[in-house]
């Protein structure tokens, strides 16, 4: 357990915490469990994907072929920030996989969705679910569609949509 994370390369996550050789690295099991516990995303959703760390705590999800370790620019997409008290999914992950989520999904109306997409914080005191990171979603073309990740605390939903992804709609 003395190895340190090498921020310059991709390392595949160990299957379980027992197989961990790099200090503080999340395991695949913990990542899949997190998505299941927090958002009720079925674990089998990720059967054909591998998870990787590059940059301390930055977890990537990948569907292609690769051997670990790997020194390239990117594989798949960043999906989760670990190595902090509350793990935080990315907006792009929420949009790609959030349709599988059934818990900690906050349904917004059109105006609230618009505010969320522009990166605004908003008072939403009616929410009686968990605090912390939620998936913001709205109904389009008859179905709920995830917008991204928000942080809910003290009656307020803070949009975590990154600057480059924010849009005036």
């Amino acid at each position, binding site marked *: 357990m003395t190895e340190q994370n090498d921020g310059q390369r991709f390392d595949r996550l160990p299957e379980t915490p027992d197989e961990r050789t790099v200090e503080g690295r999340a395991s695949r099991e913990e990542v899949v469990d997190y998505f299941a516990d927090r958002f009720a995303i079925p674990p089998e959703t990720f059967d054909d994907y591998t998870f990787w760390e590059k940059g301390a705590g930055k977890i990537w999800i990948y569907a292609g072929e690769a051997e670990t370790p790997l020194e390239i620019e*990117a594989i*798949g*997409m960043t999906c989760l920030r670990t190595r902090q008290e509350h793990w935080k999914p990315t907006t792009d992950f929420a949009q790609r996989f959030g349709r599988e989520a059934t818990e900690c999904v906050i349904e917004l109306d059109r105006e609230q969705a618009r505010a969320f997409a522009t990166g605004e914080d908003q008072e939403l005191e009616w929410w009686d679910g968990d605090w912390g990171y939620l998936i913001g979603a709205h109904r389009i073309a*008859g179905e709920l569609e995830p917008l991204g990740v928000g942080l809910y605390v003290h009656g307020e939903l803070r949009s975590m949509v990154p600057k480059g992804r924010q849009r005036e709609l």
Partner: protein
Amino acid sequence: MEPFERYRPIVDDFEAFLAACERPLGNAVRVNTIKASVERTLETLDEDGVAYEQADWNPRVLRLETDSPGSTWTSFHGFTHGQEEVSAVPPVVLDPQPGERVWDCCAAPGGKATQIAALMDDRGTVVANDNNLGRISALRFNAERLGATNLAVTVDDARNYSLKRFPFDEFDRTLVDAPCSCEGTIRKNPDALDNWSEGHISSIAGIQKGILRRAIQATREGGTVVYSTCTFAPEENEAVVQHALEAESCRVVDFDIGLEHSPGLTEWKDETFDESLERAIRIYPHQNDTGGFFVAKLEVTAE
């Protein structure tokens, strides 16, 4: 437009060609089926009151009637990606299948690489390479926004690309959407011809030849290599493919695309090219009211 005079002998209805080049291009988007079906995307556009026209040759290509295609819900959700209509042609010709290993060797900013990923249902491996680190960030941004999870992104010179880092040593298909003089983008970039010179064309043709040769070498026997540019200059198109035919094991093959086009050339100035180059296509702006493109489909053969 002066440089285009050299194409008067090869373009049918040259005046219509010039007139089309003067007209600005509308907004086209590609439906990203990784995130939503064509049906769901069209329904979302309808709800938003954004008018569109579906391309006859490809139901995933839409011409939008809006000045800001980036400010729609379909764009925010990654259901659509702004991509010129003809720029969606090469991945369709490449015809990648789910589970395959595909190389897009000049991939930034990623419109075609993500289209390849979508055509593969986001299964298999797309190695998206570009030698320009600055443009890689745009590629990565687009890949994540569009939800492509089967992309591996590398920054290298495609001419001496190594597959050592991957657990396979050849690709099933390779797209060479080569850096070029971009004459065919004149409707989108009115200054596309500002630095035009025959010297520039000849130096960029040298790079294109090196990239196409490496692409053929890195693709398995029986595999497909598509060579495309957004320019009209035969020096960057037929002459590059001719060079590959002479130097590598490959042949030019036919394909259907459903867009009006002209055949590739078999002669230009004092050069002649293999007759099979007639199987390549030249798309001129006046034929389908688009930008200009050249596309050749090659099959890698036994040595």
